[in-house]
């Protein structure tokens, strides 16, 4: 990987962060009503500027610490898009409730910058700093409605479990450092310390599986998602998963290569044969078991939910399972290719954030009306939000004209290609159950008229209307131009290919 100027890699992160800091500095000087009119736009503009910086930055790595490649670029653009959409959702719900503070917009931008650092980092220590930056901001967002006891309870559960699993991740980093003498992803183990290496990598995987919300580290997810404001549920569901899958991918491809070179996420890596049987196969088996358990438990629990946020919480667990399926090892001589993972993560994040931003606008005062019965007929009342929700839920359910279909297709196709057709079948059956839950919600949205007589108040929601509609359009439009989507460079054996293409000595 070529060296790139540090500032060009840092620019997106700094732009998102400075957007947050400007919003935080401006907050005390604005009247209560103006806060919700001005601050979301500052953060949204910062996100758009950061997205341009991501698009313009060259591929490459700086100081073995940060890197950018095609897959990371996709994840970063999605993170920024999702943050802008979620800020729109926050604006709509907080303005409607005449919420006294405007700090939530700044926190969303800080969380996004932490996730950008997670995605870009080549070093587990830098990744940990990014992970905590994002997590601390999101803890504060979960407890945003300070008057409501369920909000405090969600904060308590999320913060305690989050801090415990961050510490487990960090202990993994310490053991990994002990085994390799480095905290970089892809560092080879010192001879004689292979057991320490395996233990360190496992602790890091457990920490990241918690961030994803995979079974058995999932108990916090439904409660934290239910206690948070609706728009925050969308934000945390989307960006924490994006950061966690990027780290899982870096760690996994690094373990497979173990050559001390910067990890590229958009490249297929042939695993080192000795490591494959000693380390990757047991870990892959573990991840596969977590994946199946998450998919089955999450999908079937969705059928019993009456609250939209709790439904999304279980959907997050089921989707964590789908995000772990690409870690099934391919057949013995094939390279490890995670492009299906990036595609699935992008589709999931866009759909979840846009669906909850739209739901935040129509969830009623204090977001208390997000029960399926209270959402009855809201689609007819608010056609735009109804349409956005329909597109996003169809994408989450994996119906064909949406990006979510392509994501599920890629992940399950890869699973079958790796010989796991029984796993794919189980996942497909569970996905059908999940689809039934999403479709029941859609029927509630469009069937009949709202049961309450008085009209539902809407706050200032210009950003939300544009943002969530744009995300819904993207979910359909991206399917039409698959050439743009993340895919791995077909470099199965880089050394062999380069020796073939190089001119033979004395040939000229």
């Amino acid at each position, binding site marked *: 990987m070529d060296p790139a100027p540090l500032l060009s890699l840092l620019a997106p992160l700094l732009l998102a962060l400075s957007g947050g800091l400007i919003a935080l500095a401006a907050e005390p000087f604005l009247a209560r009503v103006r806060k919700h009119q001005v601050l979301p736009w500052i953060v949204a503009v910062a996100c758009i500027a950061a997205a341009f910086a991501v698009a313009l930055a060259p591929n490459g790595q700086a100081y073995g610490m940060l890197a950018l490649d095609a897959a990371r670029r996709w994840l970063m653009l999605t993170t920024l898009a999702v943050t802008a959409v979620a800020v729109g959702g926050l604006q709509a719900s907080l303005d409607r409730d005449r919420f006294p503070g405007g700090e939530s917009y700044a926190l969303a931008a800080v969380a996004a910058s932490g996730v950008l650092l997670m995605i870009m980092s080549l070093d587990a220590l830098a990744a940990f700093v990014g992970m905590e930056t994002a997590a601390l901001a999101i803890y504060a967002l979960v407890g945003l409605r300070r008057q409501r*006891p369920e909000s405090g*309870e969600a904060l*308590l559960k999320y913060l305690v479990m989050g801090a*415990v699993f961050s*510490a487990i991740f960090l202990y993994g980093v*310490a053991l990994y*450092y002990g085994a390799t003498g480095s905290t970089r992803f892809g560092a080879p183990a010192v001879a004689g310390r292979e057991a320490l290496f395996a233990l360190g990598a496992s602790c890091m995987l457990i920490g990241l599986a918690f961030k994803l919300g995979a079974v058995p580290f999932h108990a916090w997810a439904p409660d934290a998602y*239910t206690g948070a404001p609706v728009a925050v549920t969308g934000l945390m569901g989307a960006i924490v998963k994006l950061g966690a899958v990027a780290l899982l991918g870096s760690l996994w491809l690094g373990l497979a290569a173990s050559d001390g070179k910067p990890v590229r996420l958009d490249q297929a890596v042939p695993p080192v044969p000795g490591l494959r049987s000693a380390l990757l196969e047991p870990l892959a088996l573990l991840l596969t078991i977590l994946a199946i358990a998450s998919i089955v438990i999450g999908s079937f629990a969705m059928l019993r939910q009456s609250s939209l946020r709790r439904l999304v919480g279980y959907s997050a667990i089921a989707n964590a399972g789908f995000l772990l399926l690409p870690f099934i090892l391919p057949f013995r001589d094939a390279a490890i290719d995670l492009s299906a993972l990036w595609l699935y993560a992008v589709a999931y994040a866009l759909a979840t954030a846009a669906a909850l931003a739209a739901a935040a606008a129509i969830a009623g005062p204090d977001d208390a009306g997000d029960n399926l019965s209270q959402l009855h007929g809201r689609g007819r009342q608010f056609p735009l939000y109804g349409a956005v929700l329909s597109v996003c839920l169809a994408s989450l359910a994996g119906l064909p004209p949406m990006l979510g279909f392509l994501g599920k297709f890629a992940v399950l196709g890869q699973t079958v290609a790796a010989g796991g057709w029984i796993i794919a079948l189980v996942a497909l059956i569970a996905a059908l159950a999940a689809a039934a839950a999403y479709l029941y919600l859609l029927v509630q949205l469009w069937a009949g008229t709202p049961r309450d007589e008085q009209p539902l108040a809407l706050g200032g929601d210009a950003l939300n209307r544009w943002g969530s509609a744009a995300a819904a359009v993207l979910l359909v439009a991206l399917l039409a131009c698959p050439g743009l989507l993340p895919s791995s460079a077909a470099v199965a054996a880089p050394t062999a290919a380069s020796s073939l293409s190089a001119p033979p000595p004395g040939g000229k």
Partner: protein
Amino acid sequence: MPTDAAFFTPIHVQVLAALLFGLGLTAALARRDLFIVLMGIELMLNAVNLSFIGFARSHAGSASTLGQLAPLFTIAIAAAEACVALAMVVLLVRQQDTVDTDARSALKD
């Protein structure tokens, strides 16, 4: 009398770090008092620091420097985490006048 290096080998440090980590994990997961839970989390992070320092002795050159530097990151992040966690304690005690974590169990299926 044993020299300092022979008395305090890297493996001893790692065993101590693992014990402290386990103690912290147990306190964080099993105790009901919010403050004990938060102290358990701090103990886990400090055990990780000890582990980093212990491993730094077993590496040479810049690899050793990295292990001595890493705890600085952890300390800073642990302080930030404690700020948020203590703000949470204030919030929770204002809502409900107890530090018992089991008193908060309204959210369920």
